[in-house]
Each structure stands twice: as structure tokens, then as C-alpha cells.
């Protein structure tokens, strides 16, 4: 079981690296989908309450939304926008990958430094969470396409979700569902906005959205 959990965590870290190293947007979406599925399974692997009905329900909802529904929505937006690649990101791919490695090391180091009020269940989840959050923020600031930025936002949310897992925090069910619903609505509204942007501007490079300034 322990081996399996570690393998899942390792794959999750790899999905992050895949996201920052790939220029094909569809590949990035698949990486995020894979991350969503694995992340949804994670609460069943780590944490004190393995197989309660509540954990299973939340896990199922997470897998369906983050693993299948969001990627489907984004792939649709991608097709309608008629772009395939993130050309000329603000930070190149090789450099991005190196920054990713630095972030990973920082997350590993920092994860060990935090004083924990309770003994943690699996020591790798906290570094994973911090790495995922940092990768999400990095993608938001270093990529131009609106769609890639939404992916960054999703990955950041995933990281925060993993952070909650690391401490086995259990918010009331209603709140957890509310958080999922908000993420759902956020991606939905962003998807619609991307559709409008690509129709209105014939591109979705957010750095070219620069009419409003002082």
C-alpha cells in the first residue's frame, strides 16, 4: 500500500513537470486530467479515514469533475479556439523545466521545515502540495494563452486540495462540496470567457489584452 501511495505521488509530481515542459496545449490538458484522477484517489490512500461513505463520495466527485469534466470542457474550448500550441511562452520550455526542478527542491526542503501540530500520515504529501501550488502559480504568470492560464489555476487548486489532504483536514461536507462547486463554476465561466476572447480577438494571448491601462 505504501509503495502504491508513493508511486501515485511520484506520478503526480511528473504530471506537474509535464505541464510546464509541454508546448502542446492538449498534452497539458491530459496531464491535468491525469492529475485530477490521481488526486481524487489520494484521500483513499492516505489519511485516517480510508473508506468511509463520505470519503468515497468526495473522491468520486473530485475524479469526475477534475479528471473528466474540466478537461472535456477545456478540450472543447481548445477546439473552438483553433489553437494547438503555446507558441513563445514568456519563459522558454528548457528554462521552465529547470525552474520546475528548483521549485521541487524548494518544496521538498520547505515541507520538512514546517512545524506540524499533528504527526503527518505520509511525509511526501505536503511537499507535493507545495510543489503543485508553485507550479500552478508559475504557469499562470509565465504562459500567454488564456487556456494555459486556466490550467495553471486548476493545478493551483489541486495543490491546495492536496495541502488539505496532507493534514487530513476534514472540513464539513457541505463546505467541501461548495469548494468543488465553486471550482466547477470558475472553470465554466473561464471557459465561456475564453470562447468569447477567441471569437472577439481571433487569438487568446492574454498579454495582447492591453487596451486598458493608465
Amino acid at each position: 500500500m505504501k509503495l502504491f501511495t508513493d508511486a501515485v505521488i511520484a506520478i503526480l509530481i511528473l504530471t506537474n513537470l509535464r505541464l510546464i515542459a509541454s508546448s502542446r496545449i492538449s498534452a497539458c490538458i491530459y496531464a491535468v486530467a491525469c492529475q485530477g484522477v490521481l488526486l481524487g484517489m489520494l484521500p483513499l490512500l492516505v489519511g485516517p479515514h480510508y473508506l468511509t461513505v463520505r470519503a468515497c463520495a468526495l473522491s468520486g466527485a473530485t475524479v469526475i469533475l477534475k479528471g473528466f469534466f474540466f478537461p472535456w470542457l477545456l478540450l472543447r474550448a481548445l477546439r473552438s479556439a483553433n489553437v494547438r500550441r503555446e507558441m513563445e511562452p514568456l519563459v522558454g520550455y528548457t528554462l521552465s523545466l529547470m525552474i520546475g526542478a528548483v521549485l521541487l527542491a524548494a518544496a521538498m526542503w520547505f515541507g520538512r521545515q514546517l512545524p506540524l501540530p499533528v504527526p503527518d500520515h505520509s511525509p511526501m504529501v505536503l511537499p507535493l502540495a507545495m510543489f503543485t501550488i508553485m507550479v500552478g502559480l508559475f504557469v499562470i504568470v509565465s504562459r500567454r494563452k488564456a487556456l494555459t492560464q486556466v490550467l495553471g489555476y486548476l493545478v493551483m487548486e489541486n495543490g491546495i486540495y492536496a495541502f488539505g489532504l496532507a493534514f487530513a483536514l476534514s472540513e464539513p461536507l457541505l463546505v467541501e462540496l461548495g469548494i468543488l462547486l465553486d471550482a466547477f463554476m470558475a472553470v465554466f465561466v473561464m471557459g465561456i470567457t475564453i470562447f468569447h476572447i477567441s471569437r472577439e480577438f481571433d487569438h487568446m494571448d492574454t498579454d495582447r489584452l492591453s487596451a486598458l491601462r493608465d
Partner: protein
Amino acid sequence: MTMILLFFLLPIIAGVAALFVPSDRFRRLILLATAVAHCALTGLAWVHRPAPAFGCWLLLDDLGLLFLSIVSFLFLAASFYSVGYFQREDWGNRQDFEGGFLFSNAREATFTCCLLFFLATMSLVCLGQDFGLLWVAVEATTLSSAPLIYFHRHRRSLEATWKYLMICSVGIGLALLGNFCLAVAATLGPDKSVPLLLSSLISHGGLLHPLWLKVAFLLLVVGYGTKLGLAPMHTWLPDAHSEAPSMVSALLSGALLNCAFLAVLRILQVCQAAGLGEFGQHILLGFGLLSMTVAALFIVAQSDYKRMLAYSSIEHMGILSLAVGLGGAAYFGALFHAVNHSLTKGMLFLVAGNILTAYKTKSAPEVRGAAKLLPISGVLWVAGFLAITGSPPFGPFLSELIILKSALDQGRIVIAVVYLVLLSVIFIGMAAIVFRMCQGAPVERAAADLPGVGDFPAPAGESALTVIPPLVLGLAVLVLGLYLPPALKGLLEHAARAIGG
């Protein structure tokens, strides 16, 4: 139990109904009826406080009631204005007055639905006592208001919507992380933790892990501060406020920013209870001064009058944050100022909408003679300017004075001086813009410049529905400057005591 639920169920049901009602008249009636009913409910809550629901998850405390009243009252004004706005709007394709391209509006049904959802989510922010629920509600306000900003379907509003969505969502994401850190701070041992309810966090304040609470406070202030428009996280605010239709700008500035401020106050309450109040206040003080400085710098060189108002909102959020940072008597000042700012800024944005409709430009130098062309709006524009910059006899004068006095009483001379200098710079900066717009004779813009709007000046710029709401808000500001009703004073004092620890 049922009454407290009505505050957000009523607008949600009305919003869904608005989506499916085919008749424009009936839909507008729904909007008005909901706004009136919501306001009446809030008024009832002043007399008889509704019972909490869901084990104190939803509870109307003094602080919540104060902010709910602001939201409700401002929404009432904005909804009457909206009906006037809808009647005046040209719903077909028309030409953009800056870019010259064609654009149309969003469907009125969708817009009304989002407007009502926006009211529901803001009410939920005021009622929510659980930090998780509070987060859900604040994020929901972003999502329900984003379509409102993209009402005029053109490029600039789309850009503003995108920035608003992205920056606020990321900010709110950080607040979620802050919530988790708060949960870690509230973990007392294996399988034992304090629930994230405001009341239980306050009563167990001493048991919370101080380091994690500090981290949580920082993340929550940065997260909700993005929504609040504190510099340097304010960059979405001028764009969103200037591109949204005017009643939406009024709601964003007067109601939404306050909701974010309420969220910040909630976490400050927890910090106070844990004995970390001073730490939190120092941070808020810093953000407050920085926001005021940034606002002053951008107001002075501003040529777009709606952006000027947006930067003024940043300034006032800075004042609120500064006042809470000072503490003591300034708590009362901060809450009073929140009321004053909302009413005044709501009025100013509504008047700005009237000016925009008449002149078809947001550029201040191109607007001349507003006092002649729009007699009532012109007067309100000047009165609103005087009020917002803290001139007597309006409400903001009193609240800004209270804040200044408490800074002096605490012997914080440097802060008081900086505060006064920034206020004067902003006064001069705004005066130069506002007076120039009102004076002189209305300039006729050549028809050749503006194909499609050749029949300038606009036909009768002022209708009752677009003039009375700002007028009422303006009178309220004036009354608050002359006489503070005892009921409001009592509520402000109780609420100030709640955040004072």
C-alpha cells in the same frame, strides 16, 4: 430559521425566474420586487434579529447586519437605476464610441439573473459564520459578477472581465490555502480540532497554534485583499469598475468591496482572540498606507472619470484598512466610513453613468458643461465629489475625522501627517477633474467624429429612474453628516466592539 434563509434564497429564486420570464416588463418588476423585499427583510432584521440556522453556520451578528444593510440598500438603489438604464439602452448592434466597432449587449434576462445571484452571494458573505462557507460565498460573488462586467459585449469589457476573473480567482485561491492553514492552527491533537466557526474560534482563541495562525492571516489578507482592492493586488479593480455598466460599478465598489472587507475583519477577530491582534493590525496598516499612496498617484494624472472613481475606491479601502490597523476609536470610524463610502461611491458611479450616457465618452477632458446639460446630475456630481473627498457637511468628513483623531490620540503623528497629505493630494487631483467637467458650455462633438451618434447632445439625458436613486443616496450621505441616528450609532458601536476584541 426560515427568515435567515430568505436573505439568499429569495434572490436566487427570483434570479432563476428572471431567466425564464419572456416579458421585459415582468422581469424588471421581479428585479424591483426582490430588491424591495430584500430591503424590507433587512429592515425587519434591525427590529427583530433572525434566529441562526444550521447550528450557527448562518447567523446575523452586528457586523453582519451592518454590511448586509449596506448591500441591501445599495442594491435597491441600483435596481431602480437598472430599470431606467434598461429602458434607455439600445439593445441592437451599435457602434462603440472609442473603438468604432460594432457591439451588442448581453441578454437582459441573463444580466438580471446574474444581478440577483450577485445579491444572493453577497448576502451569504454577510451571514456566513463558518470560514469555509465564507470562502465559498466570496468566490461565488466573483463568479456571479463576472458576467455583469461583460454586459457590453466588446473587447475592453472582455479584457476587464478576464483580468477580474483570473486575478480574483487566484487571490481567492490563496485565501482557500489560508483557510486550510487556519484549520491546521485549529488542530489541537489527533482527531481533535476546533471547528472553523467564528464563535468557537474566538472562544478557543488561546489554544490556536500562533505560527500557523499568522500564516493563515497573511494568506487570507492577501487573498481577500485582492478582492478588497488593496495595493499591490488592486490591478483588476480600475479595469473592472470602468468597463462595467454604471450600476454594476456602483455595486462592485459600494457592496462587493465591503463584503471582502468583512471577510478580513472576521479573520482579524480570530487574531484578536488569539492575542495576535497587534500583528494583524500592523499588516493592515501597511497595506492601507500603500493603497492610499497608489490611489493618490493614479488619481492625479487620470483622464478617465470612471477610472478616477475606481482609484478613489482603492483609496477608501486603504483608509478602512488603515483605520482598522490603528484600532481603538478608529474601529468605529472604520465601520462608519464603510457606510459613508458605500453610499457616496454608489451615488457617484450612478451619476457617472448618466454623464456617460449623455456625453458618450469616459474621457474627462472631453466632458464640458455637465452642470448645464444635466442639471441634477451635474449638481450631484459636484456634491458627490465634495462628500467623497471628506468635505463637510457630509458623512465621510466625520468618519475621516474620527480616524484622524484616533491616530493623533495614539501619538502616531507620522501616520496622521501622511494620511492628511494623501487626502489633500487626492482632493486636489479630483477637484481638477470634476470641476472642469461641470463648468463651461457643453461642447458639441463633431458628428463626423462619431458616426452613429450624430444627434448630439443626447435626447433628454435625465429620466426620473436614473436621477432619483443617486439623489436618495446623496441625501443619505448628507443626513449622516448632520445627524447620526441612534439605532445606527448603537449598531456601529456594537460592531466596533466585536472587532475590538
